[in-house]
């Protein structure tokens, strides 16, 4: 369950950029990694409290996202999937190399405030940090769903993706809408990265090695639907954890078997099927 929420936290940003905007953004992990490094550096060098770094991480990574969106990404909105894959993989490679140059190849230490390391008794005892993640995950879901699916802005994003020309005709500034959406997506990536380093660790290959998990969640969830993404993340998390606890012999098989099975059964993921036209 908690592992699922963690997966969700990392994948929700991708669900925004890839799902809503339809851009195959494999560089998502790079933004998440940047978030992790910013948090780790602020805590280690500037002595910031962990919680204090989170809003800043969201802002900075969001800004960096806009920068990339304005200069590079936007030229590829009309391009094919292959070009997008190649381009973002290129970004990932560069990010990995850059992180190695700046922060070195080793694991970064992230020290949590003591109150998050406590364990809280709720029938079964839960580590406080996991509870914290649960809360953050819940809040994020509500905020993102309300913000992107129920508001005017959300409608504008959808209109801009479906038919940019018509959206422009309706007085929507498509460029701004895309830039803001991308900023939110990458900001969320950064936030997810910062929150996950405590459990996953942080080194320059972070961007590459967790990519598979983000994609797993987003593809099983179905593109562009935040609640489905959450559902998929929790389901995959549960399968993984239950599998490891009860049948550790089969280990890595479980996650992938579940994914392959679900996608063969429902290629569009959990998202409610669109009406055929």
């Amino acid at each position: 369950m908690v592992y699922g929420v963690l997966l969700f936290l990392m994948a929700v940003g991708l669900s925004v950029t890839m799902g809503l905007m339809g851009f195959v953004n494999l560089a998502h992990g790079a933004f998440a990694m940047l978030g992790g490094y910013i948090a780790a550096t602020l805590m280690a060098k500037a002595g910031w409290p962990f919680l204090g770094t989170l809003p800043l991480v969201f802002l900075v990574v969001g800004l960096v996202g806009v920068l990339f969106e304005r200069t590079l990404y936007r030229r590829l909105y009309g391009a094919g999937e292959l070009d997008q894959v190649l381009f973002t993989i290129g970004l990932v490679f560069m990010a990995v190399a850059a992180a190695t140059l700046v922060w070195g190849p080793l694991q970064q230490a992230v020290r949590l405030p003591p109150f998050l390391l406590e364990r809280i008794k709720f029938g079964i005892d839960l580590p406080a940090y996991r509870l914290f993640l649960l809360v953050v995950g819940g809040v994020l879901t509500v905020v993102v769903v309300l913000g992107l699916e129920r508001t005017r802005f959300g409608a504008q994003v959808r209109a801009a993706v479906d038919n940019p020309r018509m959206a422009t005709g309706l007085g929507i500034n498509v460029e701004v809408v895309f830039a803001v959406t991308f900023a939110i997506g990458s900001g969320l990536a950064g936030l997810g990265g910062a929150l996950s380093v405590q459990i996953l660790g942080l080194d320059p290959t972070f961007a590459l090695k967790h990519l598979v998990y983000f994609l797993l969640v987003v593809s099983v969830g179905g593109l562009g639907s935040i609640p489905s993404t959450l559902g998929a993340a929790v389901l995959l998390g549960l399968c993984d954890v239950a599998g490891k606890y009860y049948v550790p012999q089969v280990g890595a098989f479980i996650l992938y078997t579940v994914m392959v099975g679900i996608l063969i059964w429902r290629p569009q993921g959990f998202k409610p099927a669109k009406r055929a036209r």
Partner: protein
Amino acid sequence: MRVTMLSNRLKRWTLRFGAAAVALAGTAGLAMAQEPIKIGLLLPYSGPFADLAVQMDGGVQVYMKQFGDTIGGRKVEILKRDTTGIAPDTAKRLAQELIVRDKVDLLAGVVFTPNALAIAPLTVEAKKPFVIMNAATSIVTTKSPYIVRVSFTLPQVVSPLGTWAAKNGFKKVYSLVSDYGPGHDSEIFFKKSFTAAGGEIVGEVRVPPKNPEFTPYIQRIKDAKPDAVFVFLPAGEQTVSFYKGVTERGLVKDGIKILASGDLTEDGQIEATGDIALGTITSGHYSYAHKSPENEAFVKAFEAAFPKGPRPNFFAVGAYDGMGAIYGAIKAQNGQTDPDKMVEFMKNYKVMSPRGPLEIDPETRDAVNTIYIRKVEKHGGKLLNIEFDSVAKVKDPGK
């Protein structure tokens, strides 16, 4: 611009021609004195394991800084080749090119067993000594009479730990290892020595090699209520993730001790795991905190070469001792590089290494190490593996 290019090319041409002429005309001895000794060093310089190459390359550099870059009047030239990771086809090709094109005198390095195994047959065919500086699976040295290993094997490291644990009050131990070759080896050999000394393995679990989440396993271990858990995980992110799970599940607070091979608290990255590692008991052949003049000199030289870190670890020492064996073998024949004589020398090599006494078993050409039992303690703000017990002259029990 063009003129300098031309003259450069001329220079290169005359150099090459000149070298060939010398080789043809001069006596072998004369040519030898002028030709450098070429050592092909195969390490994963790029890719996800680049940090290991940093350690090992550092070990080589430090040795050459301490003991000079000439042997018997001949310059030592290191030809670095990037294996990119576990890639036997690339490793074999690079070795082949080093032998055929670059005409190296010997091969060295190699982090991963599959790479070593792919290269092994070449060394027989080409008669090139092959000094293994890491690749820690038992079988490696059996694959070619030209292979000499100066590092260690996992069975060698974990077997003494099993015996030690059984004799020091641990009755029930749960085993958790990474699900690949070295993990399987550790599981088997720890169990063997531990049960032989009267202990009982109450549960075993193998975790996927790229597993990011340990809590379910740790919960499972907790529920089995053992005295201790035995762990083998490859040094790096897995060890950090493991300790994060331990913190969250409160394994240490519940009084379950952690026993492990030295990889878990490997010196280069131990700081990233944090204080939760305190009290972990490991067995290993090298500790950064080993007290000896040799190690002090080694650490000092290494830290001078890499002021920003990392701390040298057993990878660096493996490479350092490999260079020691190579230097010794060539010195013993006054700068000559007869392959069989080199292997013959290395077979009987004995040295006081930064890790402690190291010798090569002439039967198996494998390292014989003193294995130390260590405990993670904090001294001067640093997490260190402090040695408190040892077993001398441990041979690889895997053969």
